[in-house]
């Protein structure tokens, strides 16, 4: 499944970069993140619980940042396995300055395997979009609270 989109964040590019590369801040953006701890340079162990109404899945795995080009682009990889199977996501994020704000563009591939892939095909796309939306909403909220006067 392809995912892509863009969002305008009311913060300087450096702050957005910070948010994406600081594990503590990143953890707060990841929906359902229960744990995110360092496991090597730019690599973190994570546990997340994704939930959509009654449907939920717990995954544990890793987040990895790579191809970092501060402050304009980086690649994020997320993979995890859990009782409903596994999930994998990989994508590139690009940041561009837009009149004091930052436009974040993302483009990537997400994959789920196991039960959810078999029975959830009609809802996966929307669910993925919602989770990404939650991620950026949380990011925006964090940036708002840390950017004075924004």
């Amino acid at each position, binding site marked *: 499944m392809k995912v892509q989109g863009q969002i305008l964040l009311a913060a300087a590019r450096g702050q957005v970069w910070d948010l994406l590369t600081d594990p503590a801040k990143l953890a707060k953006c990841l929906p359902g993140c229960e744990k995110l701890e360092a496991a090597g340079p730019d690599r973190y162990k994570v546990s997340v619980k994704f939930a959509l109404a009654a449907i939920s899945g717990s995954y544990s795995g890793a987040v990895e940042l790579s191809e970092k080009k501060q402050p304009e682009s980086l690649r994020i990889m997320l993979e995890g396995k859990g009782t409903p199977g596994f999930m994998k996501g990989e994508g590139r994020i690009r940041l561009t300055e837009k009149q004091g704000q930052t436009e974040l563009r993302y483009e990537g591939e997400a994959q789920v*395997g196991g039960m959810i892939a*078999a029975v959830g095909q009609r809802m996966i796309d929307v669910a993925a979009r919602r989770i990404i939306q939650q991620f950026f909403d949380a990011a925006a909220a964090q940036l708002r609270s840390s950017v004075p006067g924004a």
Partner: protein
Amino acid sequence: MATATKYIGKPLKRKEDPRLIHGLAHYVDDLVLAGMLHAGFVRSPHAHALIKFVDTSKAQSAPGVVAVLTAEDVRGQIGAVPCAAVLPDMKAAPRPVLATGRVRFVGEAVAVVIASDRYALRDALDLVDVDYESLTPVVDPEKAISKGAPVLHEPSPDNVAYRWELEGGDIKKAFKQADKVIRQRILNQRLVPVAMEPRGVLAEYKPGEKTLTVWSSTQIPHLLKTQLAAMLGAPEHSVRVITPEVGGGFGSKLNVYPEEAVIAHLAMRLGRPVKWVETRRENFLCTIHGRDQIGDVEAAVTKDGVLLGVKWRIVADLGAYYQLLTPLIPTLTGLMLAGCYKVPAIRIEIIGALTNKMSTDAYRGAGRPEATYYIERLMDLIAAELKKDPAEIRRKNFPQPKDFPYATPTGVTYDSANYQKSLDLALQKSGYAKLRKEQAKLRKQGRYLGIGLSTYVEICAMGPSSAMPAGGWESATVRVEPTGKVTILTGASPHGQGQETSFAQMGAEILGLTPDDVHVVHGDTAAVPYGIGTFGSRGTAVGGTAAYKSLIKLRDKLAQIAGHLMGEDPQKLVFGDGRIWSKSAGNKSIGLIEAIGAAYVAKTLPPGMEPGLDATTFFEPSNFTFPFGAHVCVVEIDAETGDVRLLKYVAVDDCGNVLNPLLVEGQVHGGIVQAVGQAMFEEAVYDEHGQLITGELMDYALPRAGALPWMETHRTVTPSPVNPLGVKGVGEAGTIGATPAIINAVVDALAPFGVRHVDMPAKRERIWKLMHEAPPRRAPRAPAKAAARRQAGRRAK
């Protein structure tokens, strides 16, 4: 066979139905043994991955868990999954019963958990932690065999399992002489058999007696017994396989599965009975699939539509491993690619491709529906191209009745047929000429009626042993019991076909009893003689003939005894109403029971005669049989939605002589419905990562009663010369004949839109697109409002 019969050929209701309808039948899941354990499998969510490690510790210590085993724990103790098909230059793709080091499809078993009850088992399955390193999967068979694709099995670096080629006649000349060459890519999508009862295995080992009993929902108890003995290294005489009631197979249980060996192994290893019953999800993922071929055809024809030669290139998606007959199925397609036509020259190339999916194997029709679909689509393509009636094109290419036995360029010899007669009957019964007029009228109103034909021949009664991987004969023992009841023990293993009824009809007819006096036993290797099984529409033609011959042997023996007792010529005695009558001397008769008594008490037997009444036959057929028929399907397409509605279905089938017309009709109905499934609804879809996204019945669409038209069935009777019953077999005819008839009707309906082919399933969106994206030049005017409204009225719920 006798001309005036009392039971044979009569529509007796099935003896097996009351217990099925009343819920009194026993399936594997109904069986409970003292101390029984439950097993379940941990399965790969990845289509292609290396297994880094399997951590079973948490599961092992969970409440109720008895054991957790991986490939490591059974190494050297269970052989690989057997494949009976051997083709020239076929590359090995051995499947271990538990994945060893690497998984190659979603659903492949990695570990087995055994627990004291199903609940503890289910919880423990989630506790087995498998670490995978994912590999790139190959999902598309054409990509799989192209350069640079990831490799599934090292012996086959190009993922080509085999190439099977066949050439007959002068193909070069045919194309040189052709007025027209017609080309088309035709797909046979992947299907899931979806038997109502999933698979299930129960095994018990008695250490004192050293006997292993395996109850399995299978179509082939004897072959399974032999294979299990080999896989487990157990002496075959200590292994007994029993098939309790089997809730449908359609070929999906014509196999030897890893679970059968693992469960049997566990029963021996743990010393307690172990049961596994497949979930529906497992049934989708790891019971064999059917079809999945890409066919490319090039046909050379004259301007009148006479076939000169055909080239076929077929890529068959075999999946990740070979199951019992996986590689063989596409070759059956090859054998039947001439259809019921005179094809002077043919060239066939079949490539078996390995992909990261479940194996394909025999699914109702097994190779023949594919062939019939290809050639019947081709006949319609020719008709459309030459603007001729599809019936006319077919008639032009049929061999004549006097041409039989008819040898095809693919190397098979059709036993007997009259294709003209069945086509004529189908056209007449369906009111074909009137339908065409109606179609023309409706088109003017913006309504799209389609009329589809298919004339088919198939290959049945599998078959002579020379052409079968594991023997093609069948056995039967008939025993007349001292009280006058008759037991027929058949080596075939019916599972819904109704042979408990039709064999009883034969027994009653031949011995002058009633069908209630005759009981048919099957599916227990300790009770019945070794047999091959039920598949390939062979149950009656081969298994029934064995029973028939045994019955005749006993009738002859009883006649000898009666003749001796009555002082009559045994040749002149007839059986009826429980008595043996003398044809020569008025009403002289003795009770059958007296002759039977004499055989057992053994005091008044003819000199030199052995006591007892038991006869066994191993029947070896001299050839396959080739049933045929003509089907007509009428559809209407809702131009606004692309929905296809089946309006009418007329089937004319010739399966030779008929033992019970009700059974034949049931088989034809069921077959047509399964064809409706392939033509209109079903599709096993793997995504690009190898995930089966139609993994359950919420997304895998089966045909429902509401989608079906009234089915009219008719017959012509052309007895087969290859068995004394003159029967041919009818188990698969419906699926074979109907699929192309339906699609031909759909394409015919879309003719005004310039459509020449539609891939299966004829999903509404696919059709809607064809209608709405038709090139403007050829597109007919928008469907009339009145028609649309009528449609609305009919469709709205």
